């Protein structure tokens, strides 16, 4: 071999590339088709959420979480309100908790559907994207029915929900629960035994359990490698300890196992939603604490006190005690946590968003080691990153 051909080639992939799921840039060092080194370059979607949240009151900040991770919007809102509720030492009424949980699980399905559609699209199964979005639209319709918005809901409140779900909500969700399992089977017939899909994903982008833990990976990435760590089980929040569901784990830690884990997670989510609908209690959806939640609209015309509370809450907001809390939820990408430091004033001193995609993406070079250049898109798709979540 001559000197010339042994040189490595540095290839710049992104930040605008159809298979990077956003504005990610990957520097690849190639020797022919083989990858010698890979380095993700991030920050192209850095929005300054953490700084922005320091300047607003706790209620105003509900606007930001769904914009950080825009695929699983309700889970993101849930994480933020749970953190503030923990800081205040309050908890939402049972009905509100249950509705939050139903919406969060539907969010998880919607997010996994985007993973499945775009992940398959990267391997040129383009019809699946259409099927996945068809079903995702059904979930978004439910969201819109509840909150009035398809994506950025702002429906969860500190201490409960903005308002109760409309009539017909449970029927709508039940219809979805009935139709969706057969759709999932349909997707699996398209992919699971598909020779091309298996050859492109099996043994590709392998991440061992030890490496995953060393890099702080969580979510389907970690579970695909065989570690059964799910925040819903390990540190139960939002009523998850009352439900029976399984945590699927993989064995090989490759892209195919991650796909299997996510498919099974969708089924488990359906299971949780079904149980939650059966047990959905009646009652208020907002905490009856005038220092935290707005008084009902009707009270304002009758009670002077309610007007004062309304005025204080809207103009000044709530004053949690000084202290610091960390509340984590299991997002479709892994452990999503909000670390809030309060100084006793009406605005947080520091909000730190612990994002799963950030840690997971860091393991990309490990997954790509000794791989070929065609596997890069498979690896990125199998991590299922959301760039808004990586860069915040």
């Amino acid at each position: 071999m001559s000197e010339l051909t042994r040189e490595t080639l540095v290839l710049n992939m992104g930040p605008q590339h159809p298979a990077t799921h956003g504005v990610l840039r990957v520097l690849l060092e190639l020797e022919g088709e083989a990858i010698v080194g890979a380095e993700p370059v991030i920050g192209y979607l850095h929005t300054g959420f953490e700084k922005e949240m320091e300047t607003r009151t706790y209620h105003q900040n509900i606007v930001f979480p769904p914009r950080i991770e825009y695929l699983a919007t309700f889970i993101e809102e849930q994480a933020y309100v749970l953190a503030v509720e923990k800081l205040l030492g309050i908890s939402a009424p049972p009905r509100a908790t249950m509705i939050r949980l139903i919406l969060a699980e539907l969010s998880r399905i919607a997010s996994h559907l985007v993973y499945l559609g775009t992940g398959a699209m990267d391997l040129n199964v383009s019809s699946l994207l259409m099927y996945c979005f068809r079903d995702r639209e059904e979930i978004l319709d439910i969201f819109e029915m509840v909150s009035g918005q398809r994506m950025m809901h702002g429906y969860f409140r500190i201490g409960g929900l903005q308002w109760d779900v409309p009539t017909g909500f449970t029927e709508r969700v039940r219809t979805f629960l009935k139709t969706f399992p057969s759709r999932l089977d349909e997707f699996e017939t398209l992919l699971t035994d598909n020779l091309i899909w298996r050859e492109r994903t099996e043994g590709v982008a392998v991440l061992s359990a030890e490496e995953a833990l060393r890099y702080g990976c969580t979510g389907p990435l970690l579970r695909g490698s065989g570690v059964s760590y799910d925040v819903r089980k390990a540190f139960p929040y939002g009523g998850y300890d009352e439900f029976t569901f399984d945590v699927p784990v993989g064995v090989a830690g490759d892209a195919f196992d991650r796909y299997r884990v996510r498919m099974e997670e969708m089924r488990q989510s359906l299971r949780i939603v079904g149980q939650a609908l059966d047990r959905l209690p009646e009652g208020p959806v907002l905490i009856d604490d005038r220092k935290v939640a707005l008084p009902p609209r009707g009270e304002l015309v009758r009670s002077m006190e309610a007007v004062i509370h309304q005025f204080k809450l809207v103009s000044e907001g709530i004053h949690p005690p000084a202290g610091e809390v960390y509340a984590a939820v299991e997002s479709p990408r892994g452990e999503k946590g909000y670390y809030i430091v309060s100084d006793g004033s009406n605005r947080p001193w520091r909000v730190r968003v612990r994002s799963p995609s950030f840690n997971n993406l860091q393991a990309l070079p490990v997954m790509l080691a000794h791989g070929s250049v065609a596997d890069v898109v498979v690896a990125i798709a199998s991590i299922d990153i959301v760039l808004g979540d990586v860069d915040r």
Partner: protein
Amino acid sequence: MAVTGGVSLRATLVSRAATSAEATAADVRALESNVLTTTVDRMASWARKNSLWPAQFGLACCAIEMIAVAQSRFDIARFGSEAFRASPRQADLMIVSGRVSQKMAPVLQHIYEQMLDPKWVIAMGDCASCGGVFNNYALVQGVDKLVPVDVYVAGCPPRPEALLYGLLKLQELIANPSARRRS
């Protein structure tokens, strides 16, 4: 006679005149109804507006709605724009779908420069139009500081229907450049 929309529905007449001396007024009318005259510009913009090819350029939350627009429920193919191109050199429409950070700004400008003329830009969503809910160190307050924007679509994120409406507005603009509102 200029034709922009549909062809005139006047009954087609056939002229039987062999030479110009024989032609009657009826024959001249027949000739007019069989010939379309237009300018090359209008012909070209008619073709351009009905096959806008967007660059596949997703930034943030709005990109998800942009994908939804391309799927079966909203079906952007009805308006001739389903061909999302991965390379800016094959695209003539840039849909800036989301917030543009200071780090992304030079890249976005570079991609815009790589697109071939004529090209159009839709600022999709509040962040791309004016910065949206964010006004801080990290974000460019509106993509019009970087590239010329033709249509702004409001919403956070805009519904797919809103984006389609924006696309139709852009088609109107291309067909009739004088309709552009200038500030």
